[in-house]
């Protein structure tokens, strides 16, 4: 199987958006399962930032979800939201609220997940849209600060390819 490790791409298509893309060496029904099954979510959602302590999923339109992790720094990080559209196994639209900011309900993100399968592999696109640029930027900041200060060593290996 072609290795996919470390191949996620994050881009900013507009001021209020974040687009995350990644290919997986698995059919999309399995990617869908890994993405929506609470027991499986617990195994990946914290990444290398900590441990997931709770994953609640009520997978129906209007149903709610909430994930909680204990970060490596010892504090809790929680996100929650509501499902808006469910078209298994290709499209999922849900809201997302980071509970760790003041007035979290004023900073709702809408995440549209699209899974496309080709030759047994799955291309994932997660488009995250926020009400304003400040909220989007805060989400990016929180995404990398949820653990501890990360080492800049890895960054030095990143080549600049913008020009």
């Amino acid at each position, binding site marked *: 199987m072609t290795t996919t490790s470390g191949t996620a791409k*994050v881009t900013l298509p507009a001021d209020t958006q974040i687009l995350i893309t990644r290919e997986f060496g*698995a059919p999309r029904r399995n*990617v869908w399962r890994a993405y929506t099954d609470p027991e499986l979510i617990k195994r990946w959602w914290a990444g290398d930032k900590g441990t997931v302590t709770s994953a609640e999923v009520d997978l129906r339109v209007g149903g709610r979800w909430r994930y909680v992790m204990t970060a490596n720094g010892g504090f809790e990080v929680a996100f929650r939201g509501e499902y808006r559209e469910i078209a298994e196994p290709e499209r999922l639209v849900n809201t997302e609220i980071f509970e760790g900011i003041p007035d979290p309900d004023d900073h709702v993100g809408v995440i549209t997940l699209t899974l496309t399968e080709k030759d047994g592999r799955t291309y994932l696109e997660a488009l995250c849209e926020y009400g304003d640029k400040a909220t989007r930027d805060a989400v990016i900041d929180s995404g*990398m600060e949820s653990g501890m200060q990360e080492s800049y060593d890895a960054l030095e290996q990143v080549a600049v390819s*913008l*020009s």
Partner: protein
Amino acid sequence: MARAATTTDAFNAVAEPRRRQILDLLAQGERPVNDLVALLGLAQPQVSKHLRVLREVDLVRVRDEGRQRLYRLNAAPLRPIHDWLRKYEQAWNARFDLMDTILAELNEEDSHDDD
């Protein structure tokens, strides 16, 4: 991350879609302002205003050649944006790499189901 409120850093300078378009066009090579006006379909004063903002944060540099002023991209100030985003990308890579392990297990289950 604390950032200046005005267009005094690259983050704010590229927040404007037209300015990102200008950077994209200049990434293809040096151009006089008339080229940019034609390609963007904007009035020259608007383009000049955007160019001024981009020059203030050193994303665009200019040189005179004969009677023309040629504008070019200087990508270095984009580095902090790039680095900022790459850290977020790393966080997602860590998640997806764990998902790979789960998917390998699910694929394995599938192949047993087929037996």
